[in-house]
Structure formats: C-alpha cells, structure tokens
C-alpha cells in the first residue's frame, strides 16, 4: 500500500514562475493547487525570453507563488511531506532562484528536498493527468524542447531522437517576429494559418530524407525569411494574404516533420511490445490544433491510445514538478542542501548528446 504523500513543487526554468501542491492518494494523484505567473509582457519588447529579465522576475515572485499555492490548496507547510524543485535543465538564473527558494523552505520547515529534472516533469505528466501506464511514448514539443522519449518508469527514459537545433515553439515565435505578429508566436501563427494556403509557398521538410527520429527546424526559419523578403521586394511590403500563406506553409512543414518522425518513433516504441500502447504529447506546441490532429491520426494508424494533457498542464507548471518529485521520493531519492542547479541535464544519459556536447556536457 502506498501512503498518502503531499508535495510542494516549484518551477522557474524559463519564463513562468510556478508553485503547486500535489497529493498522492491511494486512488491516484490529485492537484490541490497549481499557480502559474507568466512573464510574457516582460519579454515582449525583446522578441524572445531574456534570461536576466526572467531571473530577476523569478527571484521576487517565487515565494509569493508558493504562498498562493498553499492558501489555494488549504494546507500549511506542516501538512507537506516534501519540497520538489526544478533543478534543471533551463535558464540557469531562474533555476538557481527556484533551487535556493526551495532550499530555504525545506530547511526551515524540516522537509525533504527533491531536485527534479524539468523534462521528467513533462514526461510524467500523462501519468498525472491520464493515468497512462508505462511504457508510453512521449513527444515533448515546446518553446525550448523537442524530443521523443519512451517513459519506462519515473526515472527511466530512452530518448529516440529530438531536434538538433531550434525547438518548434521557438520556430513559431521567430516566425511571428519575422512576420510582424505578436508573441507568443504559436497562437498568432496558428490563427493566421487558418485562412492561408499551405501550398502557396514551398517549405522544406528538414531531415525527412534521413533515417531516425532527429529533427531540425532552424532551416524553416531561414526559408521563411527568404520567402518574406522576396514578397517584400516584389510588393514593397507584406500583403495580409501572403502572410497567412506563409504561416500556413510554415505550420504545414512543422506538422509534416513531427508526424513522420512520430511514425518512426512509434515503430521503435512498438518494438518493445507494450501491453497498452500509448502516444502522449506534452509541451505548449501540443496546443496547436493542426499539429495535434495529425499526431492523433498517426497514433490511430498504429492503434496506440493518444493522450494530450490539458493545456495548462502541457505548458510549464509546478504540478508536474511536485508529481515528479513524489515519484522520485517514492524510489527513495532525496537531495541535500548542496543540490546544484544544472543548465544542462539530459533525461537519457545513455543516448549520445544532440546539442552542446562540449566540456559542459550535453544540453539534451
């Protein structure tokens, strides 16, 4: 019998400051509170997340989010069994603020501290929300990450492949910026694409001609820039319909790449003969209706259950960190007051590095 465990979670690895309280009961996990304070407005003038601005906001917001989450959950620190915190990978200034705040809370409250890999938080979310059984295939696709993982257990992941350059969410943001659309780019580009012709402008399908599950998205941005500049040169500006077509063409290319690579990842996953085959997507890009529908179709083709957690648990949040912390804690893991914040921390340490294989180690 598993005993009831209640954990506080803290997340600050990118541009969302978040705190949550999750309770593991005999019947399964329950989110008692999940507070997310975004920073979109702070970064909007810069066309992307500025690490120092993010870190400054996290440092002065984390404890407020924790207080709000505790109040919303109707618990005090005395009701908790532990504190879980994102210890990487991510923007180091923010991660460090979160880790230090968590240490202060854990030390003062006499609670165990558990450092959580942010990617594990995303990867375990389908368990938290859908109760998916291991092993399942996960596509994590967000502004900072893009990878296929087989989740075998709470701390056991196999990475089948991922992006070798930009993450799709980043590519959506850059597309929006190049086309004069607002940030965050995902929803803005999707809305434009609805009334655009995806075939009006041809976009490449990077790496589809190569075997495996690795992806590349930076070339799409270059193709978009060229097409935009050609349009501007010809007409002295960007016509609204041309902008819609560019958005539709870009989105179609991203969708095709994700769908085909998902097919390949599913083949590799199904070779493990899972009893209940399941394909889950997590990350903000999973909110794109076109992409989501195509991935759902790919899962249906091979008879795998398709799962996409609700959007607020797909994007960065602390409930997933609290849940992953409970999962780690249940395996007997716990960290000391010397817990490090790590900018780089691949989930699957056996897979060769995709990004940044320098002396600082693999980024993903």
């Amino acid at each position, binding site marked *: 019998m598993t005993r009831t465990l209640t954990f506080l979670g803290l997340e600050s690895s990118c541009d969302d400051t978040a705190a949550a309280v999750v309770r593991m009961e005999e019947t399964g996990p329950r989110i008692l509170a999940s507070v997310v304070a975004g920073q979109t407005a702070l970064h909007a003038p810069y066309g992307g997340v500025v690490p120092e601005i993010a870190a400054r906001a996290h440092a002065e917001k984390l404890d407020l989010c924790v207080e709000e989450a505790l109040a919303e959950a109707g618990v005090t620190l005395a009701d908790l069994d532990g504190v879980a915190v994102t210890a990487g990978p991510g923007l180091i200034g923010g991660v460090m603020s979160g880790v230090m705040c968590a240490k202060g809370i854990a030390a003062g409250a006499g609670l165990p501290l558990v450092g959580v890999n942010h990617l594990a938080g995303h990867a375990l979310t389908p368990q938290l929300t859908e109760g998916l059984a291991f092993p399942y295939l996960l596509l994590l696709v967000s502004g900072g990450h893009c990878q296929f993982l087989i989740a075998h257990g709470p701390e056991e992941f196999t990475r089948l492949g991922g992006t070798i350059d930009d993450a799709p969410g980043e590519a959506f943001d850059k597309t929006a910026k190049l086309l004069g659309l607002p940030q965050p780019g995902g929803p803005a580009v999707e809305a434009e694409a609805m009334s655009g012709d995806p075939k009006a402008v041809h976009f490449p399908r990077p790496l589809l001609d190569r075997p495996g599950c690795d992806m590349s998205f930076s070339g799409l941005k270059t193709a978009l820039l060229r097409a935009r500049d050609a349009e501007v040169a010809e007409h002295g500006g960007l016509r609204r319909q041309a902008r819609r077509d560019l958005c539709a063409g870009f989105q179609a290319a991203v969708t095709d790449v994700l769908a085909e690579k998902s097919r390949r990842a599913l083949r590799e996953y199904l070779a493990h003969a899972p009893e209940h085959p399941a394909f889950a997507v997590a990350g903000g890009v999973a909110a794109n209706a076109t992409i989501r529908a195509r991935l759902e179709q790919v899962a249906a083709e091979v008879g795998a259950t398709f799962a996409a957690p609700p959007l607020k648990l797909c994007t960065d949040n602390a409930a997933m960190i609290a849940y992953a912390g409970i999962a780690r804690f249940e395996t007997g893991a716990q960290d000391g*007051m010397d817990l490090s914040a790590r900018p780089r921390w691949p989930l699957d340490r056996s897979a060769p590095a995709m990004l940044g294989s320098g002396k600082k180690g693999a980024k993903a």
Partner: protein
Amino acid sequence: MPAEGYVLGFDTSAAHCAAALLHAGRPVAERREEMSKGQAERLMPLLEELLACAGIGWHDLAAIGVGTGPGNFTGVRISVAAARGLALSLGIPAIGVSTLEAQAEGLPRPVTVVEDARRGEVYLQSFTADGASEPALLPLTELPPGIAGHALTGSAAALAYAEVQAGEIVEPAMPLAEAIARIAARRAGTPQPRPAPLYLRSADAAPPSDPPPVILD
C-alpha cells in the same frame, strides 16, 4: 523594537559565502569562505554549520538579514531567494540590506562606499550626518564632487581616492555579514518589505534590431 533573539546575516553578492550570527546584538559566530563559484551549493550547508556551532537550530532565529547587493546578479539572487524561502518557512522577517549600507556600518560619518562595478564604473553611496544619498552606478570619472572630504571604503576606494585626491581610505568596521545582521536586527521591529536585489545596473537586453515588415492591406 530591535530583535532580541538570534539574528542571522548572510551574503553572496561577490566571490564569497559570508554569514554571521548575532545574539542580543552581539556577534556569536561568523564564517566567510572565498569562492568565485559554487555559492549556491555551499550557502545552506555553511549556514547550518554556523547555527550548529552556536548550538541552535533554524527555529531559534528571530530575524534574517540578507545582502541585496549591488554586486554579482546571480550571487545576489542566491542569497535573496534563500532568505525569502527561509522567511516563508520560519515565519520570521527577512530583511534586505544593501552591501553599500553594510560597509558603512559602524564607521564615522561622513563616509562614501565605493564598490567596483567593472567596465570603468562604480557603485557609490555616501553617508553623512544628514543621512544617506541614493545608491548609484557611476563612471569612475564622474564621481560627485561632494565626496571630496569623505572617508572612502569599499573595493574601489583606492580607485576613487586616485580620482578625487582627497579624504582617506578606511577599512570597514566589521565583517560584512555581521554588519548586515546588525542592520537587520535594528529594523526587525518595524514592518519591512521582502528583500529584493539592488541591481542598479539594467538587465542589458536590447530590443530586436530588425524591424517587422510593413503590412499591406
């Protein structure tokens, strides 16, 4: 009323981990370790060692004083975030103390604290019988003339002395963390804002250089 019990002060705003413990206004334990990195890993164990050395635990603290800089951005955040977490869990105030103010603690007025801010600039604040000036980030070549008769202290005191050619260079009256704890102890009796880093220098982010295209209707 100042805090009568134990007050812990700590700082990681530069290449060190420093902490001091006061009891009834008197220093009872102090630690300072020089390090250019690793403060995030070292700070909490060092604080626990300091408390253990005085034979007390976290719950014996009445207030916390934390160095808010100016200084290394990441270093300042390490201490401020930890202090805010501790304040939340212990239910005691955490009080932010600028390292400029801390360095002037216990020194005769007038005194000007000048800290090296690199790039030819300094962080500067003057303390006179009338009070303190606003802390500022200034080019070393544009020091306020009013500091000419002041005692100078801080890591850039010698640089400032070479510029103004007046006054004298003095050493701080006490270790930095002790000064932070003393100032925090004095303020602990009145409501204080949560500690926040004193950056003085902006985040150094520039808006994108390439303008968006002209949209044609």
